[in-house]
């Protein structure tokens, strides 16, 4: 037997065997509900399966980042199987709306459950969980009284003490976009340049790395999404970093949303609306947001105890869709200011 034939056969057998053994989920009666979701599997799958069981309908989902999912929807066009599109950023929802990939819906249940600044005025999308991006400080070295606003982090007193995540992170881009909307481009750029001048070290790839660096003493203050700290505090009760709600005397702390809408070419429109309403309902809201230490978008629902412990805060109530619109401008500002 010559050499190449054996591995060829082995690999072919492997492939065929594995293919044959794959068992897809059993088909339930009726059209399945198809969800394209940038909110990842570990945060949503359990709820999706619960809905499927409750409603006697199959829920199929596929995960990816928001931008590729938008591209997939575009390429599939009118024949896309997707009914619902869920993102982890208002910018992606805004962009999907611009590209004509979502359809406006009216739903009394959704409109009463979700505050106006967390949903599209025309009903293309609705916020389902709120992520606050605010100041984090090292408890041993900083007192809350020393903190006030995001802009104050640009003051010389924090020179060499500030840590930031990469300017390429969408959450930083949406924070900067909010400031461009609130105080104009020039003032925002001045503030961002001040932050960069205060950096203790190169920006980090993600919030978790940054928070760990703060705990390790590399820097004293930083800007983070609260849930990243929530996860770390959940693992280690005495994690030496704490949340400070920024801009409480001003316009409020920056929030972004994880939210969803019904796709333009949904085959199962009625079911898609019912599904979003179910996700926004009080009983589900706590778990939808709670799985990730976020705040429920439904204002009548309490967050997890660990999240409640950070105290309540005043959110900036500029419509989150406006932030998406300004995001490209924010990205360019970040490049100019040299925020790597």
């Amino acid at each position, binding site marked *: 037997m*010559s050499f190449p034939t054996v591995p060829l056969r082995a*690999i072919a057998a492997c492939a065929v065997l594995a293919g044959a053994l794959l068992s*897809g989920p059993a088909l339930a009666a009726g059209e399945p509900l198809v969800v394209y979701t940038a909110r990842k599997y570990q945060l949503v799958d359990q709820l999706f399966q619960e809905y499927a069981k409750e409603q006697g309908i199959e829920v199929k989902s596929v995960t990816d980042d928001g931008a590729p999912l938008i591209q997939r929807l575009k390429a599939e066009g009118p024949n896309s199987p997707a009914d619902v599109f869920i993102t982890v950023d208002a910018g992606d929802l805004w962009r999907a709306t611009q590209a004509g990939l979502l359809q406006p819906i009216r739903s009394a249940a959704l409109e009463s459950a979700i505050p106006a600044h967390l949903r599209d005025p025309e009903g293309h999308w609705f916020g389902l969980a709120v992520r606050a991006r605010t100041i984090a400080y090292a408890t041993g070295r900083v007192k809350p009284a020393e903190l006030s606003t995001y802009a104050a982090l640009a003051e010389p007193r924090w020179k060499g003490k500030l840590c930031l995540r990469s300017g390429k992170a969408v959450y930083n881009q949406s924070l900067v976009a909010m400031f461009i909307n609130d105080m104009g481009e020039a003032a925002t750029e001045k503030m961002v340049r001040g932050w960069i001048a205060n950096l203790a070290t190169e920006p980090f790839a993600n919030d978790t790395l940054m928070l760990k660096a703060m705990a390790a003493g590399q820097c004293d203050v930083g800007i983070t999404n609260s849930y990243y700290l929530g996860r770390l505090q959940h693992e280690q009760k005495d994690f030496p970093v704490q949340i400070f709600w920024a801009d409480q005397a001003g316009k409020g702390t920056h929030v972004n949303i994880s939210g969803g809408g019904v796709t333009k070419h949904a085959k199962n429109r009625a079911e898609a609306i019912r599904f979003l309403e179910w996700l926004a309902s009080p009983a589900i809201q706590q778990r939808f947001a709670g799985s990730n230490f976020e705040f429920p978008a439904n204002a009548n629902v309490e967050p997890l105890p660990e999240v409640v412990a950070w105290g309540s805060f005043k959110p900036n109530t500029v419509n989150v869709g406006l932030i998406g619109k300004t995001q490209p401008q924010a990205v360019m500002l970040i490049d100019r200011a040299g925020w790597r």
Partner: protein
Amino acid sequence: MDAASARAGPASVAILVALPMAAVVAAIVQGALGAEPALWDHLREYVLARVAANTLVLAVGVVAVATLDYAGIVPTALRAWLGNDLWLPPIRSAGGVVAVIGIALYPYVYLMARGAFLTHGARVLESAQSLGLGPWQGLFRVAIPLARPWLAGGMALVAMEALADFGAVSVFNYDTFTTAIYESWYGLFSVETALLLALVLLSFVALALAAERLARGRRRYTAADAGARAPLRLALPGFRGWLATAFAGGVFAVAFVLPAVALARWATAVAPFDLDGRYVAYVLRTLALAGMAALACLALAVALGYATRKPSAGRLAHAAARFATLGYAVPGTVLAVGVVTALGAFDSAWRAHLGGDGLWLSGTVLALLFGYVARFLAVAYGPIQGGFSRIRPSLEEAARSLGLATRELISRLHLPLLGAGIGTALLLVFVDVMKEMPITLMTRPFGWDTLAVRVFEMTAEGEWERAALPSLAIVAAGLLPVALLTWRMERAARAA
């Protein structure tokens, strides 16, 4: 038979194999035409110069590290899949990112260089010795120059993969062309500008590859003796033996043991919560896709290698072959956009002309394989082409004169002589597909979540520890086929 018709056959085969890549590139070009001038101006002013310099540093540095590592004769290729970028080194710098990607990618150079050294065989080195060259001189003045096309092939793969890397560079927050592509798409909301950037990157790669070819000139490399014995093992006495062991062991420790231990520690911490029956299906799907893609790439690479095995195949055939294998230098996510767009266009054309509804190709396993072939054909083609160029033309002439038809020629002469090249090609594609993310994510059908998809979902949420479990599962799932192939290759090498 006149020269023109002699070239028609190879050219049409090569062009046929290049079709998937052509469809993808057409989709990318069409998208790039829509790039907004204002965004392009912004990128040129604030972004391009820096990312171009960074990208160059990355490519050169990674090739250097990967090449310096190749001599490590570690008795196994098991670490080939170490493309995981989960190990977080303390140094977030150009040096750090170069070291990590270089260590992860050196098997490309190692496997191809090893194949070349084995074929040249003992006889060449013995001749060198008889001419008075010592072992070191033999290495630098005979073995390495003779291995040049294979070394260059491995280095080209490494450089292309480094250029297209997004995982490691984003962990290090090191800005390259790839991060600029992501910024344009995710941040500036312009997939068109992202595609344009990818085309610029692609043309740089094409230029670099053309330059290498030009430098190699008209020299031809064939094995002096196709059935050469493998070089005799040289027993290194005392101190030198320890030094060699330490070097090989060091590479093994840094490239495999260290990351594997880190992964295992994390994985055991999360396994009680995350490990369940679903993992059986993830592993099977991962193996199925990797196996099918490896076979598809191998088949096309052999067709391409056969068509272009002689210089007389003509320029068109060689150009088509180079084009077909460019996909490896395109960041996976850009290629995925091209794949999805091309398949979407095919589906709507199908509907328009043949009726029916729904999606024919989009969202099928075929779509995934199409994407894998467009991306990984280069990985299979490198070793196969190397193998073909070691088969002396006189052998083929002899076989022809004995009356062998083309089919028999391939199955009875070429395939057996390609030996180790086939193993290397299968191995590299298999491992690459197992850890591929962007194309799998964007084109997979429902229910086709693989281990790499799970890794993505965890890392995308910053949950590195939880990503260790599926990463380790990729390593474990790959062990069997990789071990089998390695064993076969060793045996074939010994038998030769």
